[in-house]
């Protein structure tokens, strides 16, 4: 159903359709990455692995790693650090008081405003989520699996939220924040890890629905079977 390509594989002669994960040489399109070929309109190679590289507009979950006035330095699960300027904070922050608002190891949902050619990453806060994040649980999966966890038009995440009865925030960098009843969080976290593991298989959404419903029906029975 899908085709796996490796770097250097010949894909097409139609260079106008060359998209992400490909490169053009001598009028031909080749794969630049190891991944799944998407040949619908644009020719793209969707990577199966790799580190998260920030892009403008991405919403990510960051962890404060350092405070260097006038910036909070965020670890965003990437080779590059994100910088949040004090002026982005919805309060007046004076020199030397930054740790009253966000301390080291605090979590925040932030948006990438700009990435310069040197890969310096500027962040801003996402208004709906006042930092730091309180409660809940943070889990981390490879960022390449995020589209699978969201599903086509959000089908998978919708099921997870409804059947899992949790608040789930999925960020582009592979971090997922789940908040709710401890038991529900356990279940949702377990399923998300499984989806990430089996991201390249088909029919996942149906299997997840079945599993979640079964877990709801007779909690103990199903949980024993899973282990």
């Amino acid at each position, binding site marked *: 159903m899908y085709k796996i390509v490796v770097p*250097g594989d010949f894909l097409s002669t139609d260079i106008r359709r060359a998209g992400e994960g490909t490169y053009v040489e001598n009028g031909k399109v*080749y794969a630049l990455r190891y991944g799944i070929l998407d040949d619908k309109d644009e020719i793209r190679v969707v990577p199966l692995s*790799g580190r998260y590289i920030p892009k403008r507009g991405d919403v990510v979950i960051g962890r404060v790693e350092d405070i260097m006035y006038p910036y909070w330095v965020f670890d965003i699960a990437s080779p590059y650090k994100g910088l949040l300027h004090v002026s982005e904070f919805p309060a007046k922050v004076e020199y030397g008081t930054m740790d009253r608002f966000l301390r080291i190891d605090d979590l925040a949902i932030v948006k990438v405003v700009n990435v310069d050619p040197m890969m310096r990453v500027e962040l801003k806060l996402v208004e709906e989520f006042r930092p730091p994040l309180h409660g809940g649980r943070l889990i981390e999966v490879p960022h390449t699996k995020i589209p699978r966890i969201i599903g086509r038009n959000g089908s998978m995440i919708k099921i997870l939220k409804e059947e899992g009865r949790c608040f789930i925030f999925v960020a582009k960098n592979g971090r997922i924040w789940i908040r709710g009843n401890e038991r529900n969080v356990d279940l949702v976290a377990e399923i998300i890890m499984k989806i990430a593991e089996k991201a390249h*298989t088909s029919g996942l959404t149906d299997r997840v629905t079945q599993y979640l419903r079964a877990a709801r029906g007779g909690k103990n029975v199903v949980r024993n079977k899973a282990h």
Partner: protein
Amino acid sequence: MSSEIKLIREDGRRLDGRLPDELRPIKIEVGVLKRADGSCYFELGKNKVIAAVYGPRELHPRHAQDARRAVVRFRYNMAPFSVEERRRPGPDRRSVEISKVSREALEPVIITEYYPRAAIDIFVEVLESDAGTRTAGINAASVALADAGIPMKGLVSAVAVGKIDGQIVLDLTSEEDQHGEMDMPVAMVTRTNTITLLQMDGRVTMEEFEKALDLAVAGCRRIYELQRKALIEKYSESRTEEIP
């Protein structure tokens, strides 16, 4: 030089029964290390090597960073038990050289410009050695880089050729290397026919060199097919598995 030891038998085959243009058996496994971004286990006859790739990741110390591209670092290391006589652990002149030439064999295919200021670290550990570990290391590292999702223009394949008992042969074993007349490891990007590593130890005529190079290119192509197959199989075999 090689007067006493016969390396080619009466029937034209080599001591291990291979034909002059035959490779040793190859086994490739992708993604053997859970915590590495990409990894590969590679067997070439009795050679056993494992490659791990980490990155792109933040590079320290900062003065080593390059504002325009990622820095590729390659470490080739032989385990003390990889050879018959225990090898003193740690880097030596030979492994520093191999690390350098192997890095230079892989760097041309990696799009380092995508990751300014970062580092891509490649580690190759030789667990068992029987001549040709640098080529096995390059083959393993190339697959591990692809597995790590690093953007590359193609895979690099490598093999050694040599001259034993006056004949040009492919993929030398340790005896053939020690008692033969020439040893020449070659690495290339098979898609573009670009040679990225070529070293030679010994003396040959120009014609013999050309014959050897042709043989190496043919060997690299065969290895490339196996590398490609191993990568594709990683995801096709687990396709039918059920969750949970």
